[in-house]
């Protein structure tokens, strides 16, 4: 028995189970984790956007209410100034009271067009303000050096024809206080016209607002900022930027077109959200912004994303920790389960190894697991028993087969040993030549041929075919041949020989075997051939220069069938170079793959070109033709051919 090759070294089942289960579980977990992360991020983002926007709106509202509150007094004064003839007696108390009664107003002026208050004076702009000592102080604005007509607080409301909050500015005097001025134009409406006469202004300090915005903090480093109508920073945690930088200058310095785009949105009076990297903190941040309609400013709130998502991240860390613990547990469980599967399997592997080595009596481990392993164990056990039984059967069969084979060998030995095999058989004979061959089938068929000189002048030859096969046939053939030779020597005719052999064979022929025989006695001196037949195929006669023909045979029953069977002898005269061919039905009944017989017709055709050939050649050619006909089809019967070439006797020899 050949040993199967050892299976290639592979990772154990436990390893693969753990790998595949953990890998697929990890995939599922990661997908769920990823979705959860994304979704919670969106939720947080939405929530934070709302919070940030609320913060922005609250801040906007606070600024708006502060600005609106300051807008009222100048508007009232402006209306007052339009309704009455203006004199200093009217104007100065009005302005004084406005400043005195409104602490939010740092200072206020009523600035007139050139010569509009008094045609003699170019500048007229009484200005009241809260002095450092807490009192309301007064001064006149306007001079060649301070031509207020060209200042924004005067020029812009005049040209735009509407009240305006100025761009915030640093007031140099009060230690760099950030201020903005509200200017309300008033008109001369006398005589149905509407002529610009001047503006009433109110200055406010933005410091308090800026401080409020500075105080806004969201999460750890979130901050708020305020920009003016032109994008300049009014409030920002980085004090260096205030009034020096604008959203746009920062965007240009840092080459950040997206910031410029956001800035344009903001000063365009729109509100919204944006995500970008803060230049101030250098972090990816969420920006919410909304306009301050009164002044055209815009409030923004920046929240660093990492702070927004800090909660998610701590949640995620926890989830990951739980997952890690879970995976460890899962790994242990998988290993335990796979061990419980592989332990009996390993035992089973040990047992099957024994079986593989040929020990079919090995005891398989006892299983009570009730699972596939138990089934497998039972199957292996059944296989073991089946193998055992099979091997026993095979031993038996092969023994029988060996015996049969040896019988066949014996039979073939008997058959072949009985046949004359020396050619040319009679080197001293010049009157004839003879050749014979027997191609035994796998199972010995019991063919026979024989020839011998009965005396100096007479050659006896025969071809026969025993009905059965194997050893009995071989023995029967041996008996027939021996009998025939013994009887021929008594000087009988071929018919008498057959008759005597028949009688001998019929006695004690319990196995009811029989044999067909064609035989002849040739007088080599004269060419007279006496021949007889016992149920055999007719020989082929090839006359010198003639066409092959079947030699007509006398009727005769097979030998060994009936004791009383009668045989007759016929005579034919062979001339010089006539040839005779005897054969068994192994020739004519040889079948090809299509079950087509070789046939007597074919035999005659094959013989035609051989009318001048030597007997050896005739036999060999015919044998080759039969084998060619049979092709791959198994030879089922012995093939026996005997060829005789009668050369005739020269005058010299005849006399001698």
């Amino acid at each position, binding site marked *: 028995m050949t040993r199967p090759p050892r299976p290639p070294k592979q990772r154990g089942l436990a390893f693969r189970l753990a790998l595949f289960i953990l890998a697929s579980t990890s995939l599922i977990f990661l997908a769920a984790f990823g979705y959860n992360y994304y979704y919670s991020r969106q939720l947080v983002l939405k929530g934070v956007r709302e919070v940030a926007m609320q913060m922005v709106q609250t801040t906007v509202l606070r600024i708006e209410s502060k600005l609106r509150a300051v807008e009222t007094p100048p508007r009232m004064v402006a209306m007052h100034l339009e309704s009455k003839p203006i004199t200093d007696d009217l104007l100065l108390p009005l302005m004084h009271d406005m400043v005195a009664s409104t602490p939010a107003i*740092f200072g206020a002026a009523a600035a007139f067009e050139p010569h509009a208050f008094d045609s003699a004076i170019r500048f007229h702009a009484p200005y009241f303000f809260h002095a450092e000592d807490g009192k309301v102080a007064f001064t006149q604005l306007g001079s060649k*050096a301070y*031509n207020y007509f060209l200042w924004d607080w005067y020029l812009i409301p005049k040209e735009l024809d509407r009240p305006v909050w100025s761009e915030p500015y640093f007031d140099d005097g009060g230690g760099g206080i950030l201020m903005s001025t509200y200017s309300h134009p008033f008109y001369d409406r006398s005589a149905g016209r509407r002529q610009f006469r001047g503006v009433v202004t109110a200055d406010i300090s933005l410091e308090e607002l800026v401080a409020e915005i500075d105080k806004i903090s969201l999460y750890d480093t979130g901050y708020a900022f305020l920009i003016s109508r032109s994008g300049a920073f009014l409030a920002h945690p980085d004090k260096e930027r205030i009034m020096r930088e604008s959203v746009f200058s920062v965007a240009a310095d840092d080459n950040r077109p997206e910031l410029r785009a956001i800035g344009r949105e903001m000063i365009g009076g729109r509100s919204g959200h944006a995500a970008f990297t803060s230049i101030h903190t250098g972090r990816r941040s969420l920006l919410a912004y909304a306009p301050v309609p009164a002044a055209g400013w815009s409030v923004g709130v920046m929240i660093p994303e990492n702070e927004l998502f800090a909660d998610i991240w701590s949640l995620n860390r926890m989830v990951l920790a739980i997952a890690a613990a879970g995976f460890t547990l899962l790994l242990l469980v998988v290993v335990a389960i796979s061990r419980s599967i592989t332990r009996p399997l390993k035992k089973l592997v040990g047992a099957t190894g024994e079986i593989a080595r040929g020990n079919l009596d090995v005891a398989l481990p006892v299983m009570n697991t009730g699972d596939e392993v138990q089934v497998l164990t039972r199957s292996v056990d059944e296989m073991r028993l089946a193998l055992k039984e099979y091997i026993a059967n095979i031993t038996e069969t092969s023994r029988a087969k060996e015996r049969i084979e040896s019988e066949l060998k014996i039979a073939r030995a008997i058959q072949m040993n009985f046949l004359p095999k020396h050619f040319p058989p009679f080197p001293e004979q010049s009157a004839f030549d003879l050749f014979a061959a027997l191609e035994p089938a796998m199972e010995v068929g019991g063919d026979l041929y024989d020839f011998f000189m009965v005396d100096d002048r007479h050659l006896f030859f025969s071809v026969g075919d025993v009905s059965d096969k194997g050893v009995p046939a071989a023995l029967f053939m041996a008996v027939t041949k021996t009998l025939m030779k013994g009887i021929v020597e008594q000087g009988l005719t071929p018919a008498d020989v057959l008759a005597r052999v028949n009688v001998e064979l019929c006695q004690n022929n319990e196995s009811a075997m029989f044999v067909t025989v064609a035989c002849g006695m040739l007088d080599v001196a004269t060419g007279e051939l006496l021949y007889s037949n016992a149920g055999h195929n007719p020989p082929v006669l090839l006359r010198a220069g003639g066409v092959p023909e079947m030699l007509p045979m006398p009727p005769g029953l097979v030998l060994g069938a009936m004791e009383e069977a009668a045989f007759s002898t016929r005579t034919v005269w062979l001339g010089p170079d006539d040839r005779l061919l005897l054969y068994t039905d192994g020739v004519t009944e040889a079948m090809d793959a299509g079950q087509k017989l070789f046939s007597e017709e074919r035999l005659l055709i094959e013989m035609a070109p051989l009318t001048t050939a030597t007997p050896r050649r005739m036999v060999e050619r015919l044998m080759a033709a039969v084998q060619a006909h049979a092709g791959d089809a198994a030879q089922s019967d012995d093939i026996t051919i005997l060829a005789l070439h009668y050369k005739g006797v020269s005058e010299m020899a005849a006399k001698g």
Partner: protein
Amino acid sequence: MISIKIRTKAISGIAGMIAVCLLAILLGPTPAHAETLKPVTFLPQWSPQAQFAGYYVAEAKGFYKRRGLAVTILRGGPEQPAGDQLAAGQVDFGTLFLTEGIARRDQGTPLVNVGQIVQKSALMLVARKASGIRTPRDFNGRRVSVWEDFNLQPLAFFQRNNVDVTIVPQGYTLNLFLMGGVDAASAMWYNEYYAILNSGIDADEMNTFLLADHGLNFPEDGIYCREETLLRDPEMVRAFVQGSIEGWRHAFDHPEEALTIVMARVNAANLPTNRGHQKWMLARMGDIIRPAGGTAPMGTLTEAEFRFVAGQLRESGIIETIPDFLEFYDPTPSTP
């Protein structure tokens, strides 16, 4: 807002003097050398910015000191016009536009141009594309804000193009333009134009008309002193002009260093500007002080340019007679 400013001027004046004294004590050269330095005052025509980078650099790098001058650069601005201060003899040197220099000469103030630093006019008209102004002809019937002090070029521009424009006085900011109060505004290429960009209006949203490119090149900043100063101490004048030219060269060759010097001035004055803006301004100053293709040495004023500008001034009635070129301009101090 306003009264404070008036009080501040006095305070800052005193503070400035104290600061200058302190600086002189702290940073001044060795006492032995100090006696040889001539104290000189210089008033640029506007607040500290890169428009005057060359002078600040010359002062900071000691280019004046090396020439024997202790220059004090005063803070300019609308409340302290350089022309007036020069005329009144309050300062030794100042910068003025060529137009103002000629006008003052005509008005009888004996100011002399001792170095025409800026060769090319940076004055431009800026219009929003949305207003539909694309060509000079499109100004017809529009509201355009124009600085009263610099209205000569725009008016000539409108006249040349035969358009009727409503002139609105332009203040110290571009806010009126930004708020849509006018269709177009005057701007200095090196200053207001960039301020507009930094107020959120993109360059491709504007059409600009650089007046120098429309046949109206009025050379701008020149260094002026009174005639008597030049007569009394021509070496001192030459030292100042040469120091200033060296300052400009250094500023263009070392823009970052120059910007740092300018920003120190800007921050000391607490002005609402930033380094990016000043960087732009310095680069544009390079374009107008050393215009592409120009070969004349720094400080040169050609008679042709002088006559063109003076002719425009006379035509508009600002001056009566064109001053004598060689009386008005002395090339010696700026000649290398």
